[in-house]
């Protein structure tokens, strides 16, 4: 697992870095560089081809990606991109992901950016490498390049001669910067991209092969557990750990200020010791939390930084109909099934951390800051964990492991959080509030749109300063949490998808960014788009109703983008959507559409459900989805992501809410924070992929989150006549709304 990269590559990477620096230092060249066209995807940040692709003398191909497998199937899709353009069998490619000493720095694996940034880089790098191989073969065989073809790891000439890739390359051939354009294949000739290919990681995971950081157990490893405080900001005031240190298997109690942990030989011994420590520790309670019952009022009263992110025409027009609505979304959990885990070893002044963090480079920098170490002395290697769906406790547990490893040099330290801590301490998806107002003219066309959204930040990721690592805030010399920042448009954070995709002549959208965070929050899949699409797409249905229009037709009349038209039309057609369809009592159907971030994948869905009148319980029926992800590399991968997004979003939407009292978080397990179980899963989900060969990749992983929530709300309204605007749409709330 700790294999060192080949020396030559390290050397090359260093050389590449030096080149970039020298460019930056020469103003003339830097000015020139500004006129250079942007390179495709993350080649723009890491332009040297050999940072991405290496081919050895035997022709073995290694591809280096700075994005990580989070369960979304990215490894398989990246291998497909590389194999297609280099012209080799996918099985012949070794993919190395997210490692601070081996791969390009592609920041976080987040925001549905992997295909767009990394897939695009690898596709183009692979095509350029193929071009170089053909050039080299042309020289070798003394033939024009037009008479040569790359296939199956070999360059073949018209005259029958051939040279294998491994024979063509010498040390520095791929050590050159990428070009702005690449000799990409015509999608008509694709044999790997867009063709069925099973996930490369599934067989191992399903047969007990070590696949996760949780499965690592190097020789001499100790098992460690952390005793978290009883609530946010509590301070450890008294501890006599003597009795714990003599417990069976216990190796060391580690304390630094209010950070408290124990390392033991056995995992159950570590858990026993953690419980004993927890019973002995005396804490001074931190600041009290706000009342949950009035949390939305509390949030609205906090100071906000307001920015107008859309101002078009003359907002404030009165029409034939004016409508207003307010929507709420509670704090929600990532709730990874496997609590966060990390392995760390501190030896010879160097720290190595195996982590399922979404960003090994930013984590490395934050760990270096926390431990006052040079960044080069910290090595972070991504190893898969349980699915994360955003910024969960992955980085925090890496910090825990690092602190314990520093106290026990030379011993590999494995830390896994307990379920109660994962539920209680992970950074939640922030609670949000939105207000929408719109006017329709007499023809049922939108003439005015005003939308306000209030939210905390959607990223407190550890970008460099240590203060966003949980443990760092509890050390004897604590790190302060950095001031939160909004994620700017066009991607946005709390205001992601707050700008309507629909055509309205007069519109204003205001994003109210609230710096003060009553609960710990950060990025949860889709960020603000989950709430904003829920709000906008619920509101569009309310407006369609006011206009006396079919909700699908009402959306189409306000959509100019032909690809948006195509997904909406396909979802409606495949569902069998009929205006004015009559459904049995208690049954409803709902439609929703969004283009994620207004710049990634398009996703439209129609669903039907049944509301049990006596209880308000929702039974999800058939769900039909259309998605346009641009060039589709792996159709089943796209379907799997969309199905997953819809089921996960349905669970958030119907059941999920973090609960808290004045003393702390109270939803600390799957009983107090219930999620969807099999009997409540939809009857079926059918995903139709609209492939766009040759078009850009459009990130898909988060595209289903918002539309699923709104379609459910719309179907509940259709089934019951009750419009629910506060998430989650629980049976109790539905029952209260429909009455006896």
């Amino acid at each position, binding site marked *: 697992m700790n294999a060192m990269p080949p020396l030559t590559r390290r050397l090359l990477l260093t050389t590449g870095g030096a080149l970039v620096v020298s460019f930056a230092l020469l103003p003339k060249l830097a000015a020139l560089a500004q006129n250079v066209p942007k390179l495709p995807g993350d080649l723009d940040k890491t332009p040297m081809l050999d940072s991405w692709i290496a081919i050895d003398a035997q022709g073995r191909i290694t591809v280096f990606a700075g994005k990580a497998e989070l369960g979304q199937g990215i490894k398989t899709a990246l291998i497909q991109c590389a194999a297609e353009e280099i012209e080799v069998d996918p099985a012949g490619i070794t993919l190395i992901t997210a490692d601070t000493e081996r791969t390009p720095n592609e920041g976080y694996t987040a925001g549905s950016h992997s295909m767009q940034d990394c897939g695009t880089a690898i596709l183009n790098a692979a095509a350029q490498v193929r071009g170089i191989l053909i050039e080299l073969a042309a020289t070798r065989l003394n033939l024009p390049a037009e008479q040569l073809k790359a296939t199956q790891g070999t360059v073949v000439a018209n005259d029958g001669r051939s040279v294998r890739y491994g024979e063509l390359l010498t040390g520095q051939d791929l050590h050159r910067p990428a070009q702005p354009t690449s000799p990409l294949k015509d999608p008509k000739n694709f044999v790997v991209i867009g063709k069925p290919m099973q996930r490369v990681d599934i067989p191992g995971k399903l047969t007990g092969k070590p696949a996760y950081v949780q499965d690592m157990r190097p020789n001499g490893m100790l098992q460690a557990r952390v005793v978290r405080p009883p609530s946010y900001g509590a301070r450890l005031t008294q501890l006599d750990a003597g009795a714990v240190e003599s417990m069976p298997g216990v190796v060391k109690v580690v304390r630094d200020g209010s950070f408290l942990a124990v390392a033991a030989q056995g995992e159950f011994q570590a858990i026993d010791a953690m419980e004993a420590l927890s019973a002995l520790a005396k804490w001074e309670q931190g600041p009290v939390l706000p009342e949950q019952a009035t949390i939305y009022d509390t949030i609205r009263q906090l100071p906000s930084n307001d920015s107008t992110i859309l101002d078009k025409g003359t907002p404030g027009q009165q029409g034939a109909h004016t409508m207003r609505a307010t929507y709420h979304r509670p704090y929600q959990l990532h709730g990874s099934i496997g609590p966060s885990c990390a392995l760390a070893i501190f030896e010879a002044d160097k720290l190595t951390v195996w982590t399922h963090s979404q960003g090994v480079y930013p984590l490395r920098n934050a760990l270096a800051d926390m431990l006052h170490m040079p960044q080069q002395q910290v090595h972070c290697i991504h190893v898969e964990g349980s699915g994360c769906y955003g910024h969960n406790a992955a980085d925090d547990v890496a910090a825990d492991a690092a602190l314990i490893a520093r106290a026990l040099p030379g011993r590999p330290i494995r830390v896994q959080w307990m379920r109660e801590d994962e539920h209680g301490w992970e950074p939640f998806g922030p609670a949000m509030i939105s207000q929408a107002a719109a006017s329709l003219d007499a023809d049922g066309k939108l003439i005015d749109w005003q939308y306000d959204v209030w939210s905390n930040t959607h990223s407190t990721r550890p970008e460099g300063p240590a203060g966003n690592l949980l443990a760092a805030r509890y050390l004897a010399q604590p790190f302060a949490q950095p001031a939160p920042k909004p994620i700017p448009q066009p991607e946005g954070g709390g205001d992601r998808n707050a700008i309507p995709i629909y055509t309205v002549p007069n519109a204003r959208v205001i994003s109210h960014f609230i710096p003060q965070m009553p609960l710990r929050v950060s990025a949860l899949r889709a960020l603000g788009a989950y709430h904003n699409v829920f709000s906008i797409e619920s509101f569009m249905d309310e407006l369609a109703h006011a206009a006396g229009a079919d909700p699908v037709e009402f959306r189409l009349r306000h959509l100019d983008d032909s690809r948006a038209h195509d997904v909406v039309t396909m979802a409606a057609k495949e569902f069998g959507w009929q205006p004015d369809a009559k459904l049995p009592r208690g049954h409803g159907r709902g439609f929703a559409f969004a283009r994620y971030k207004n710049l990634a994948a398009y996703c439209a869905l129609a669903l039907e459900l049944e509301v049990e009148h006596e209880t308000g319980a929702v039974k999800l029926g058939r769900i039909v989805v259309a998605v346009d992800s641009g060039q589709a590399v792996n159709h089943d991968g796209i379907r799997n992501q969309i199905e997953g997004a819809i089921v996960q979003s349905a669970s958030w939407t119907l059941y999920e809410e973090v609960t808290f009292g004045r003393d702390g978080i109270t939803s600390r397990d*799957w009983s107090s924070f219930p999620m969807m179980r*099999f009997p409540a899963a939809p009857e079926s989900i059918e995903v139709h992929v609209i492939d766009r060969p040759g078009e850009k990749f459009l990130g898909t992983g988060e595209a289903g989150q918002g539309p699923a929530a709104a379609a459910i709300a719309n179907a509940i309204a259709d089934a019951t006549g009750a419009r629910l605007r506060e998430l989650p749409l629980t049976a109790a709330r539905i029952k209260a709304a429909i009455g006896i």
Partner: protein
Amino acid sequence: MTVLNVNGQQHRIDVDPRTPLLYVLRNELKLNAAKFGCGLGQCGACTVLVDHEPVFSCILPISVLEGRYIRTVEGLGSEGRPGPVQSAFIEEQAAQCGYCIPGMMMRAQGLLEHNASPSDAQIRDAMAPNLCRCGTQMRILRAVRRAAKAMMADAGTIQETAK
């Protein structure tokens, strides 16, 4: 010393008999498939079979398991020769992160050993103790149905051969 029969092999285990089976499987026997999810018997990531019954190995102390027949995913088949439930899950690509899937497969194996052709409602009820956060439920349901068919077909073939 506790003697455990795991996947048909006897193992002498020298740990505190209060230790839940999960930690022994993972750390003493180095079997990766069963996973820690909650330690509370709420999520099913740790599901294994004991005498044909699915159990939460995270809360079951080894002291009660001597003489019982314990099975994990490693006992269903290998990457080279996956068992019918594993094959069905691979065919349906029924995994995203995959962390919960070994528990799902053991739950499904337990169901199919009791009921060779369960209805959709019976499958959903039987799988209810196990959680998947990635939202792979639709594929898992398809995989269990596929596994049921494959096992029925296998059983048919065996009966044919016996004649």
